[in-house]
């Protein structure tokens, strides 16, 4: 091919800006607390959080578990809920997109349940499952399934009509068209659903743990409040954020690999 790769350098200023912004953010935060502009009882400084982070790697008290246990419990809950929502939501959405019967049956119920925020299910969930892992998985599943259904549905609906007609002229049956044309066409949307769904699951997790838990990163935040410990609250928040970012990166990598064959 007559194409060659040319490397274009980003100007120095543009490369420095993101670093400068992060440094400034933490610098101002530290200063605001150190100089007493915001009292320490209201906000922890970055160094206090870092110190607590180091401690919590080894010490279970006062909230009952070390950081890795909290994180692991949260990840387990989020991923169980996430995978279950993919498992149910994607096939459901795909079927709703192609088969009118599936749409007619599932759509009204889905539209009724969709606007209810997943955290609104917490009380019922506690009646049904108690405060253990299954209840939280259920709530996470509820929030994760929504984008799965919607994106898969839209993905199938967006299949090129001409491609479908083309397949019909080759004698393809409805089921074959669904399998060989609609599903591959919908795949990019389905992968989009995975990214969104994962983000929803992770966000809902904290809410679920905030109200009903005895371990987990959300629980760490709750305990920080009860113990009037701003460092613990902020540590919980930062751990939730960083773990979320890490999961996001893993999913993105996975998506790129899996989609490599479907270049447009």
């Amino acid at each position, binding site marked *: 091919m007559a194409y060659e790769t040319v490397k274009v350098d980003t100007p120095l200023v543009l490369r420095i800006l993101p670093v400068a912004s992060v440094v400034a953010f933490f610098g101002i935060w530290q200063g605001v607390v150190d100089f007493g502009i915001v009292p320490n009882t209201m906000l922890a400084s970055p160094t206090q959080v870092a110190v607590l982070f180091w401690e919590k790697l080894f010490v279970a008290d006062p909230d009952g578990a070390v950081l890795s246990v909290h994180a692991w419990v949260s990840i387990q809950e989020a991923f169980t809920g996430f995978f279950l929502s993919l498992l149910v939501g994607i096939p459901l959405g795909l079927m709703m997109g192609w088969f009118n019967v599936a749409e007619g049956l599932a759509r009204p119920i889905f539209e009724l349940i969709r606007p209810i925020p997943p955290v609104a299910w917490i009380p019922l969930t506690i009646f049904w499952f108690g405060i253990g892992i299954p209840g939280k998985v259920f709530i996470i599943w509820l929030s994760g399934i929504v984008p799965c259904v919607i994106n898969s549905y839209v993905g199938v609906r967006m299949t*090129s009509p*001409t*491609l479908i*007609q*083309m*397949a*019909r*002229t*080759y*004698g*393809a049956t409805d089921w*074959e068209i669904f399998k060989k*044309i609609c599903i*591959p066409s919908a795949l990019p949307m389905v992968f989009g659903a995975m990214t969104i769904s994962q983000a929803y699951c992770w966000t809902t997790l904290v809410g679920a743990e905030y109200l009903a838990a005895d371990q987990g990163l959300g629980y760490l935040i709750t305990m920080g409040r009860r113990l009037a410990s701003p460092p613990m609250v902020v540590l919980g928040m930062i751990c939730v954020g960083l773990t979320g970012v890490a999961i996001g990166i893993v999913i993105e990598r996975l998506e790129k690999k899996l989609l490599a*064959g*479907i*270049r*447009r």
Partner: protein
Amino acid sequence: METSQEYKIDCQHISKTFVQKGTQRVHVLEDISVNVKNNEFLVILGPGQSGKSTLLRIIAGLETPSEGNVYLDGKEVSGPGADRGLVFQSYMLFPWKTVLGNVELGPKLRGISKNERREVAQHYIDLVGLKGFENHYPHQLSGGMKQRVGIARAYSNNPELMLLDEPFGQLDAQTRYFMEKETARIWETEKRTVLFVTNNIEEAIFLGDRILSLQGKLPGRMHAMYEVHLPRPREHTEMKFLELRQKITDASELTL
């Protein structure tokens, strides 16, 4: 209604009206009657908005005529089928399938065994001149090559009738000219009944045994039928070619 078995395709008094957005009626075709003999190359020539693609889609079974009937081998057409191979202007290849995967699609859907369909697909890939590109994906091919895949794909299903809807409309002039020559060569190598829709007079004369010219502006009506008595392979610069071109141009509202 009676129809004769001697025609491959027999269209009798086809009219088509679309209802858009539930209220607006668009009259697209008005009383089209045309027949096509076995292994004949018929070109449907008309400017934009003359209903020529709709006529082809009706014969393909993708649309139903509002009035009139279409007979294929004496049997009424009631829907799309594997006996008619379609080639679209926009190629319509599967982006996630290779050239080979696209070409062997038809036989695969008909449940032909892997070895057999590979053989058929390879035969037509060779015929359209894409040997060596079997494992390329559509996005790696040029426009002309994509349409070669489209043609090979239609052929590989062994249809009795080939329907081509402005297949070279998206190509540049040079590639288009080259593809016209290729189409003539492929058709002479493996004869099929062909219906070829175009808005290009030269393309029509270069390829067709007969040319059905539709009148511009909706609804599309039959304007004239031209017989092209030129030996193949044809030359755009032959005197008779140019005379016929002049005749059609003068008679129609088309401009070149």
